[in-house]
């Protein structure tokens, strides 16, 4: 056993740091420093910078235009980007539909879509959830009726993150209502400019317009846009969930938040000293740091396994579960540390220290982490059934 990164990996880590230091535009760095939200145009600007460097899709194989990185390099790159607070890239093209197209798409589909995902010319969003189908995805109703070489799509998708900016949406739609729930679902790509598509943004409790309700009113989509087979969309969706589980642990983001908490605590007076020197607060911060350390170790185990080409073991299933909780609790602790400043909401600079500006909106928005991407309750159901082998719940 060996915990150390290879010299080559350490060199790569330094290369990433140096790159970020020079390539991250000043205005984005300033936002990162105050944990401010990045609007879509910032994200896409950074996407294109990473694309130019060849690092925009670390998990893509070389033949698809990726850098062909090892699992460890992917981890290092992700961690350093998160630690630096660079704009998180939209995952819908790079992490979700891209790999699905690689695995299930035709050569034509791959040629049509993959380069545009990579270079950022086309951005994507996800159409899975519906108002009546959240955790229970298989009960979705948005329907696609055959009409010659096309499908006609009608229905509504919800939580379509950043649909208002997206060029394309990948959807699960019902193509056969007569069969069992998970059968009869198809994975299809829809151009957002098609007549009848209407994305209506709504605010999150974090104060940003991250979600949309997206409506489909007789939207005509060529059958050529189906990924995989008609009525076999569930297979595509399931495969897609398995990608890059370590990303969900949010280790880099959490380490950055922890560092910020310590920074704020060191600047906050209480009695004759600072919060960071105060036994009770030190203890709170240290306990979370230790939990994060354990999560990081669990992530490294998954990573080391992936490096050896092993399928993710049981330890991988805990990453999303615990990672999202720790991330939430870090933001909760940051709010506590800030005292009255925690109450500030999108004020101009100067009302609270810069380091505190972005905490409150993120504190709110992190509540979503334990809900989206398969709620933590659903994750536990899955572990109970598939890992612990407990009988179906009654």
């Amino acid at each position: 056993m060996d915990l150390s990164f290879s010299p080559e990996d350490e060199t790569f880590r330094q290369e990433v740091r140096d790159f970020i230091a020079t390539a991250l535009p000043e205005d984005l760095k300033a936002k990162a420093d105050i944990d401010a939200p990045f609007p879509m145009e910032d994200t896409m600007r950074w996407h294109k910078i990473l694309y130019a460097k060849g690092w925009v899709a670390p998990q893509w194989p070389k033949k698809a235009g990726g850098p062909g990185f090892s699992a460890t390099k992917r981890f290092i790159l992700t961690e350093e980007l998160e630690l630096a607070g660079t704009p998180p890239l939209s995952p819908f093209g790079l992490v979700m539909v891209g790999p699905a197209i690689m695995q299930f798409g035709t050569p034509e589909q791959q040629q049509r879509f993959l380069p545009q995902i990579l270079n950022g010319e086309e951005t994507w969003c996800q159409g899975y959830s519906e108002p009546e189908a959240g955790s229970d995805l298989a009960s979705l109703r948005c329907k696609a009726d055959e009409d010659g070489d096309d499908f006609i799509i009608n229905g509504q998708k919800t939580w379509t993150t950043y649909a208002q900016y997206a060029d394309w949406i990948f959807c699960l739609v019902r193509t056969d209502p007569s069969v069992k729930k998970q059968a009869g679902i198809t994975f299809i790509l829809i151009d957002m400019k098609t007549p009848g598509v209407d994305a209506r943004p709504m605010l999150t409790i974090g104060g940003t317009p991250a979600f949309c309700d997206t409506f489909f009113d007789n939207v005509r989509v060529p059958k050529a846009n189906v990924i995989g087979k008609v009525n076999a969309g569930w297979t595509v969706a399931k495969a897609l969930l398995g990608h890059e589980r370590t990303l969900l642990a949010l280790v880099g983001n959490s380490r950055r938040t922890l560092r910020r908490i310590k920074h704020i605590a060191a600047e906050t007076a209480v009695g004759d000293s600072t919060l960071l020197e105060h036994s009770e607060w030190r203890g709170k911060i240290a306990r979370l740091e230790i939990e994060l350390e354990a999560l990081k170790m669990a992530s490294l185990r998954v990573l080391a396994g992936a490096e050896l080409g092993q399928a993710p073991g049981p330890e991988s299933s805990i990453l999303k579960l615990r990672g999202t909780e720790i991330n939430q609790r870090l933001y909760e602790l940051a709010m506590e540390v800030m005292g009255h400043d925690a109450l500030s909401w999108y004020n101009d600079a100067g009302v609270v220290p810069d380091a505190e500006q972005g905490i409150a909106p993120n504190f709110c928005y992190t509540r979503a982490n334990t809900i989206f991407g398969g709620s933590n309750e659903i994750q536990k159901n899955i572990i109970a059934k598939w890992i612990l082998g407990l009988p179906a719940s009654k």
Partner: protein
Amino acid sequence: MNFELTSDQKMLAQTVRQFTKSKSPVERFRKLREAGVPWERDVWAHMGELGWLSVPFPEDVGGFGAGFVEVAIIAEGLGKTLVPEPFIASVVLGGMALLGAGNAAQHEQWLSPMIDGTTSLALGYAERGSRYDVSAVATTASRDGGGWKISGEKIFIPNGHEAENIVVSARTPDGVGLFLVAADGPGVTRDKIKTIDGQGAGRLRLDGASIGDDRRLGDPGDGSIAILEHVLDYGAAAACAEGLGVCQATLDMTVAHLKERKQFDVPIGSFQVLQHRAVDMFVEVELMRSMSILASLAVHDDDPVARKRAISAAKVTLSTGGRAVTRESLQLHGGIGITDEHDSGLYFKRMLVLDTLFGDEVHHVERFASLPSFAEG
């Protein structure tokens, strides 16, 4: 021992329920928030007419002379629908500070019109770096002819962005004193800080502000600190009541959602895991209710140790219970709870403000543990 409300108190609770239902359901707060309107003068005046702004004050200043139970009844009721009028900020904080530190003439001049609902008050005690310690006062007041010059900054003043007059603490050569600052006075700059709950707060910058001696509330010295501490305990007790209202409404909303929302062809409230988590919320609300009762009865206690012990215990219960209830509510609502358009988020954010004001969980745990009552057993 008796925890029954009197018939008058029951009637008061009923009146508050009717008011919130007909005049200020949560949709009203949502509309005001979107319009950037902190609260409405005519509603405030109506609350004055109803007598609510008079409850904790003695009859000789035009008050109702009731105990704190009535204050708690009103605060809890207003919390249930997030009524934005500054009941705690003006009546409990500004009002009780003015009552405790001021003289009869000052009561006549500034307390009475607030009780009427004509004006509103506020209390500025927090400064950058003071955290929750009311004796950490960097603002200074010095004699200036027959009056005073005050310099310093007060932040996150509930209703500080709207009140006509604001009680502030300032350090004088004789100790900390309390002064009633006119928001439009010379050398006074006040602006609105946007807050997470959408209610806003005031920031007051005093740059050699001239304050007449008639606006000095009592004599500077330790007495002012004791008054401030007591007033913040009133505030904390009222926050416990409002927070109880917030959490009861959150629980009700969540249980209703669990009954209505279907997934996997059944109401999600039939899933045992969600049932037990709703029960955990229920337990927290019941404990908050018990401690809100304790706070409203103990806040008048003549023994400051007993008072502080009870208030700190209640405030800690508010923080821990309130966090658990409002955060779990978002989780149990699922995606919809993360949208700004759903009410659960509004309650979640209001709870955070109540959690923070007047000292957070760590502050009150430490105060509780530093009282002589702790070491004694």
